[in-house]
């Protein structure tokens, strides 16, 4: 009956541990992003701060921390200041149910997959009110676009999660990893779910080619146009935490989690996770941005029906084989 307390403990632990981890991961992520972007475009990328530019993002972070915090005059200050926190915390809470190794998990919730979807869906609130509170038409448009986009893509994401949970027979992430030990990686058994998950996850974290909410060329920078300094960094942190969480979830659900020969589990997990992250970055530098109607059509007319049909097929095979 100490459930209530345990969840409080879990939340505290996550925020404490993962804030540190996520800051490091996010900085590494930004660096990777820029480096990979450079290579894909035949440039060098950051090169000057530290050996091979390794310390570039550290320098950037320090710069951001030093910057002044500016709130627009007509902004709703309380909401303006809360919004980045919501995004960052929701992004971090995802990590509660990610198993890094056989025992390396904050809490093995028996509703892990549902929890993940729930936390991922919380981000929208932060983005929407952030865009609203800035009192800026570009921010508001970015926020609204983001809300419609994320709500639309939550459904295909959920169908992918449901299909995997059905196959594994459990909602617990640890259980899903264990199920893959017996039945092989779900990326083979559940390949359509994997594809749907990847596309929906990319859209869910507002990355190219689904980066309409922050499309620089159209909306200045979308919902965080007015944010500066640490609060801007919090948005970025939340976004990177979310992106890595999606990659980690894809690893857990489809790539057998931490399991692998010889190397220790954590290494395997990180290897697979960074593979997915690399995939996401690769798409970012390869594909052009979608139009808003194309984006919504893709979700409602293609991914969602495909996901539902796949759930039916999965159910059929579970029942009869």
């Amino acid at each position, binding site marked *: 009956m100490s459930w209530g307390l345990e969840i409080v403990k879990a939340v505290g632990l996550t925020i404490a541990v993962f804030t540190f981890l996520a800051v490091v991961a996010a900085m590494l992520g930004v660096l990777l992003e820029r480096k990979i972007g450079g290579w894909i475009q035949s440039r060098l990328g950051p090169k000057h701060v530290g050996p091979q530019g390794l310390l570039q993002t550290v320098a950037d972070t320090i710069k951001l921390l030093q910057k002044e915090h500016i709130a627009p005059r007509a902004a709703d200050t309380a909401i303006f200041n809360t919004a980045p926190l919501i995004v960052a915390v929701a992004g971090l809470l995802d990590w509660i149910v990610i198993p890094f190794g056989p025992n390396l998990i904050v809490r093995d919730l028996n*509703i892990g997959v549902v*929890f993940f979807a729930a936390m991922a869906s919380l981000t929208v609130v932060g983005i929407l009110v952030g865009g609203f509170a800035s009192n800026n038409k570009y921010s508001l448009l970015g926020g609204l676009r983001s809300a419609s986009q994320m*709500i639309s893509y939550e459904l295909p994401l*959920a169908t992918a999660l449901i299909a995997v949970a059905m196959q594994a027979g459990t909602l617990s992430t640890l259980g899903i990893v264990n199920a893959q030990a017996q039945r092989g990686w779900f990326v083979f058994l559940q390949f359509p779910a994997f594809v749907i998950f990847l596309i929906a996850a990319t859209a869910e974290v507002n990355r190219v080619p689904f980066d309409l909410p922050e499309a620089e060329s159209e909306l200045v920078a979308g919902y965080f146009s007015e944010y500066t300094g640490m609060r801007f960094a919090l948005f970025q942190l939340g976004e990177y935490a979310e992106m890595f969480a999606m990659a980690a979830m894809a690893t857990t659900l489809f790539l057998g989690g931490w399991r692998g020969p010889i190397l220790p589990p954590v290494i395997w997990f990180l290897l697979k996770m960074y593979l997915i992250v690399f995939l996401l970055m690769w798409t970012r530098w390869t594909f052009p941005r979608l139009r808003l109607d194309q984006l919504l059509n893709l979700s409602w007319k293609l991914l969602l029906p495909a996901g539902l049909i796949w759930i039916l097929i999965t159910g059929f095979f579970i029942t009869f084989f």
Partner: protein
Amino acid sequence: MGELAAFIILSAITLASAVVVVTSGNIVRSALSLVPTFLGVTGLYILLQAEFVAGIQVLIYAGAITVLILFVIMLTEGGTGLRVRQTNEQVPLSILAAAVLAVLLVGVLAQAPWPRAAELLPQYTASGIGEALLTNLVLVFEVTSLVLLVALMGAIIVARRER
């Protein structure tokens, strides 16, 4: 002891943010306060060992309904309605009605002898819920899905712009 503390904290969060929801003059803050309210209710579900319902509560209420509400606020008035009176002239009567009802309800609830069951909830309820939905309560499930479909179509038709 820990349970009681958790209960008090969660109830306080729920009720306090619900008060903000119903009293705030700024409709966006009202809507934003729905999030802690719903999360507090989620906490209560977890105290009641209904983890699956809790997960769905966050997913649907905090993640979807709140966003929908915020969306509509921004599509209709948004921040422009800040200077407008948010309550009508029957506030005193409403407070009276709500308060009297609260007193009456608490009175009834406090003295009612609820039957208590000896057995405990099953440990893992998600599968139990799934089984119940597809066997004994299958009609409920089907009818709900029908309602969902009808609501979907209704919402689209009502909100569609006239040509």
